[in-house]
């Protein structure tokens, strides 16, 4: 019983950890896509942010400075995306793919150029990473059955960015539904002409949405390289940006469901890590690969089979021009 309990807690806490980049990216996508700008560049922004975070954290020996540079880089990439697709009304998918290509190539190039470690950044010392936050009374409560273990090992004991990610969900919901900015943002993704004729600048509104997304993306990147790991590795985002997009669609572009979709994907990933050692009788290597591919396969199955109709923001993907 004790052992089962601790397995469950381990699995769940690993789920939470693995969900964090998905949640942050999913919310980032939510901001920009609900404003009518498709954001396929989440992956690239997160990757570049992860590199910037690791490089800056190493250089300045500070996780916070790393986070700052991560956000800065994500913002710059978002501005490129915005400049191409909002200001110049280019194709949003192409511009997003460009961001992904730039990031995939430049991160490795810069890493090799600066650190000459084959595309990695140097291992970060513990001081240059985000430390674990132990919530008050976590140790004292450990002796209380069940609740103590849940509190100490499942709720307490993560780095600050994990808490930021989970706090970002209700905050995003509140911004969307209870602020002027949220109302306008939802409107501009559905009918930019309504926003324009109401005397609000469509472009500026979309830029602001992109910036909100960029900040979240930057945090996600910093989480990958400075909190979850201790340095940058090439392609370390490993498709999480695309998984977040899938979660966003699965959640039908709503903040609270985004949380649950990301938790689900995180759980599948946690499962696959936990049960890597299972042998299906196909030899150890093949079995591991099957288990590792499960989260991606299940993502496809869920999206294709269990979703029903998702209605995307109506103006999504369409650059706004005043009609003639």
């Amino acid at each position, binding site marked *: 019983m004790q052992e089962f309990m601790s397995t469950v807690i381990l699995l769940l806490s690993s789920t939470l950890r693995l969900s964090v980049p998905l949640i942050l990216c999913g919310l980032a996508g939510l901001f920009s896509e609900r404003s009518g700008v498709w954001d396929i560049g989440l992956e690239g922004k997160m990757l570049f942010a992860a590199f910037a975070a690791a490089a800056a954290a190493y250089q300045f020996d500070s996780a916070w400075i790393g986070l700052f540079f991560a956000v800065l880089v994500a913002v710059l990439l978002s501005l490129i995306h915005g400049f191409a697709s909002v200001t110049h009304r280019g194709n949003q998918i192409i511009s997003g793919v460009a961001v992904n290509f730039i990031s995939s190539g430049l991160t490795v190039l810069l890493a090799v150029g600066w650190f000459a470690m084959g595309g990695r950044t140097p291992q970060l010392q513990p001081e240059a990473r985000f430390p674990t936050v132990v919530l008050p009374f976590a140790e004292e409560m450990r002796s209380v059955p069940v609740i103590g273990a849940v509190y100490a090992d499942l709720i307490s004991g993560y780095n600050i960015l994990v808490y930021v990610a989970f706090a970002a969900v209700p905050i995003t919901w509140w911004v969307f539904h209870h602020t002027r900015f949220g109302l306008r943002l939802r*409107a501009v993704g559905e009918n930019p002409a309504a*926003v324009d004729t109401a005397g*609000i600048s469509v472009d500026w509104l979309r830029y602001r949405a992109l910036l909100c997304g960029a900040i979240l993306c930057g945090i996600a990147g910093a989480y990958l390289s400075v909190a979850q790991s201790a340095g940058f590795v090439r392609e370390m985002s490993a498709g999480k940006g695309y998984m977040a997009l899938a979660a966003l669609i699965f959640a039908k572009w709503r903040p609270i469901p985004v949380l649950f979709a990301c938790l689900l994907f995180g759980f599948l990933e946690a499962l696959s890590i936990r049960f890597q050692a299972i042998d299906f009788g196909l030899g150890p290597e093949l079995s591991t690969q099957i288990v590792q591919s499960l989260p991606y396969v299940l993502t496809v199955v869920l999206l294709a089979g269990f979703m029903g109709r998702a209605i995307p923001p109506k103006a999504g993907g369409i650059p706004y021009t005043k009609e003639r």
Partner: protein
Amino acid sequence: MKAEISAAQHVLELVGVNKSFGSVVANKDVNFAVEAGSIHGIVGENGAGKSTLMSILYGFYQADSGKIRIDGKEVGIPDSRAAIAHGIGMVHQHFKLVENFTVLENIVLGAEEGAFLPSSRRKARLELQRLAKEYELQVDLEAITEDLPVGVQQRVEILKALYRQARILILDEPTGVLTPSEADHLFRILRRLRDEGKSVVLITHKLREIMDATDTVSVMRRGELIATAPTASMTKESLAELMVGRRVLLRVDKSPSRPGEIVFDVKGLNVRDQRGVRMVKDVSFSVRAGEIVGIAGVAGNGQTELLDALAGNCVPEAGTVLLDGKEIAPDPFKRRDAGIAHVPEDRHAIGLILSFPLRENASLGYHRRAEFGTSPMLKRSQLQQYAQQYISEYDIRPPNADLRTSLFSGGNQQKIVLAREIEHDPAMLLVGQPTRGVDIGAIEFIHRRLIELRDQNKAILLVSVELDEIRALSDRILVMFDGAIVGETSPDASERELGLLMAGVTQEDQGRG
């Protein structure tokens, strides 16, 4: 000095406004003034520059030159925000509403109180209750906008403008989507606004509305404002003449029909749309050779689906379509081959491929015929020959078969579709909204052409939301309501009777009442 005094009586004045798009002159030296407390109509053909002028006023475009004065003071209107601040409100032809928002959210959008919504909502609710009472503009504020009928959505647009304290309300073709009774309600609201001292600018192509509702009327032609006069001094005929620049026959001249054999027979037709909603319910009727049967009804009562099913564009749930007694399978190519031609309601969506040149659109749908060759290649010379023939017979302008179809005006695009469908010698012609978005001059031509076709002993089914058009052309009128045919009348029936039928009050009910 004197000029200033006279200007002060005008709440709004445009002086010498010019606007060009590239080489196209949209507004040329336009002078236009609106008096406080009046309803001012603007008429003109498509492309005459009405909408451009109003867009300049609402800050959508910048004039190349010219002045805008409000209450006699010169102002600049760089964007819609400035227009709103000057008390200008606009109800666009295509509503600018966020469909999945509540009515309240739509009204508050852009006119919020502070950064947080709850206080904006509270304030708006109070203010809107007052406005609703004052102007007969009752709307459920919590309803989702897309669930509301268009007439109510239009009320939301008017409320939006009033909530922003508009003193000058511009309405662009407001009645296109309304039932006669909804239109009456709208005009009552507009009159009340006028009596409160507000000014209303009404853009329309319906001359009857100008005559009924406006105090002053301005006529635009080819970018110029060519006349402004009290409405009382004008007649429909004189307005039409000013608009087109020549005499126009507003009445359709036609002899009584001589219907022959039944050509087209529809039995028990039922159609469900993609959502599974039954849009056409047990519809049966027939059309004889040499007659035009009109289907009247408010938009959205199943006419679109009926026409689509008859043309074979969708497979009905039940029912048969017979041509000369032979059943034809629901397939657009088979129907067309059998002699059922179709002028679709939405020429942009299914009537034409706008990025193709005229030459290709002129034979689209008939291109499988042997005359275009049996090899995989189309015979270009044949395409060209048809296109040239239509251009000269239907006076399509500019007369250039190579031109991309999107570059023709609405009226000329419609002529392309019409020519293609009529000239392939159909036994039966299905026509949807033949003159939607078409100029008065072209309307006259299209109507005449349809009558000619009838007199060649063809059967025609006409679907239109324009009651005047239905009455002018049809020999018999069927009225559709909620997917079913609720009555048949002659074109001489009173507007009241037709209006009641269109609202779903059946003839038996009318008899009782």
